[in-house]
């Protein structure tokens, strides 16, 4: 149910998209036995200002520090275009390359479709980082194991909550494909 809020200007009259705060049951991938999380985070570089609030929020959520080097997603200025910020965040793939490549079978997909690394099984070899097309898993230097985005355990992702410009969007996969196509064509 949408509650009408009290704002008056055109900016506020646009109702905010209703997004479920908990991941629903994972969706089935047609023609396979695979399941995948129903929501995914998409980054719109045309809106990103490089404020790094997503990284800082992520670092605080997982490590209780504002040191952005502890974040599990990455935003950097594009080497090809000044003032244009690009991002890499885990897509919790349908067929995760990190999962396929792990020699210790430490990477698995949980019941919500979130791709996770078991800290008990990981030996820190770094194969997952090499296999991932965008190099998402990173070394946790203290524990000497690889770590990656856990979608905030299926809660409202902190990076999305902290994004100061709305460049990070949380949306169903089907819609995300459409948006990414549109962004690429631009």
């Amino acid at each position: 149910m949408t509650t009408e809020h009290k704002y008056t200007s055109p900016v506020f009259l646009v109702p905010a998209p209703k997004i479920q705060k908990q991941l629903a049951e994972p969706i089935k991938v047609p023609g396979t036995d695979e399941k995948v999380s129903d929501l995914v985070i998409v980054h719109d570089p045309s809106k990103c200002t490089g404020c790094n609030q997503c990284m800082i929020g992520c670092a605080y959520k997982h490590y209780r520090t504002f040191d952005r080097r502890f974040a599990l997603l990455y935003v950097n200025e594009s080497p090809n275009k000044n003032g244009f910020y690009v991002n890499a965040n885990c897509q919790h793939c349908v067929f995760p390359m990190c999962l396929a490549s792990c020699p210790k079978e430490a990477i698995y997909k949980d019941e919500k479709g979130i791709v996770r690394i078991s800290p008990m099984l990981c030996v820190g070899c770094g194969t997952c980082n090499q296999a991932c097309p965008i190099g998402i898993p990173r070394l946790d230097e203290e524990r000497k194991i690889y770590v990656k985005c856990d979608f905030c355990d299926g809660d409202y992702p902190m990076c999305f909550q902290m994004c100061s410009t709305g460049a990070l969007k949380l949306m169903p996969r089907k819609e995300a494909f459409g948006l990414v196509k549109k962004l690429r064509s631009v």
Partner: protein
Amino acid sequence: MAAAKSKDNSKADGAENGIAESGVKSVSSAKPTKYGYFLGCVMPVKMPWAEKATMTVSKHLGLDFDYMKETLCCVRPGVWKAMNPDWWLSVTAQNLANAEKQGITIVDTCNGCWISHYESLKELTEEPEKLKMVNEHLGKAGMHLKGDVKVKHYLELLHDDVGMEKIVASVVRPLTGIKVMRHIGCHARKHDETLPNDFDEILRATGVEIIDTPYDKTCCGLLLYFADSNQAILERIGKKMMTAQALGVDAYVIICSGCYDQFERGVKIYREEKGIIFETPIIHIAELLALAFGYEPEDFGMTKCRPIAADKFIEKVRAIAAKNAKAAVEKKKGGESL
């Protein structure tokens, strides 16, 4: 008391009628809007000139505009929401409850304050269980929030409530020939391009020329400063100010006090640690409007308390004004001789 009240009301009604009569924006509600200016932390300490200019411009435009009373920290979500969303909601709700009690619309010039008030109000009005939780906390301080309060960004107030026609009509000293770079700040971009477009439109109304650069959108680095001070200064403020210096613009125009705080810090660090002195003054949009409306820089303390002096900028504004006045006189003479 009653007489004073009726005088106040008539004054406010007059202001509203002034807007309606000019055909800029008809106000349908019978009750005039009373605006409460939420200063935030940086404005009164580091930007007294911007504070005075904002008050001057708002009064000049006929708004019922005064300082909001009984304010607390806005509790910027960039830090506090990550730490504990319930604390953030409960503390920021105190400002909303105070505004509700005073019957005012909160006006923020700082993007951090605005997004904090805006997002907390949105969450509290959309999610009754959060409002209940917040009211339990507020109740301990003898406060209560219904959610019947409005929050506005200063740009919205100028663009939507006052209207562009009235702003354009108020310009008596067009700043034609002044080149500026502008920085609106991240939070103002959160919903769509409405506020950035309003910002540009208001700037153009003063007659200035806006110079587009690749770093217009780039964050000032305020939050990043807590996480990586080097990158926040070198990769954000440094790049922005270097670009302004290289292009030789007359001013860097901002709206957000949080961003100004970071600009000032960056400029000082560059000067003290690297020996690089930036010469582009950082000017608040209200100062530009005040100058365009015919106020003198001394009227709002433009020459004082700035890390980069605005003297050259003021000289140029005066020179342009003198040139325009001379041209107007000559035009008038030419018209008379004809």
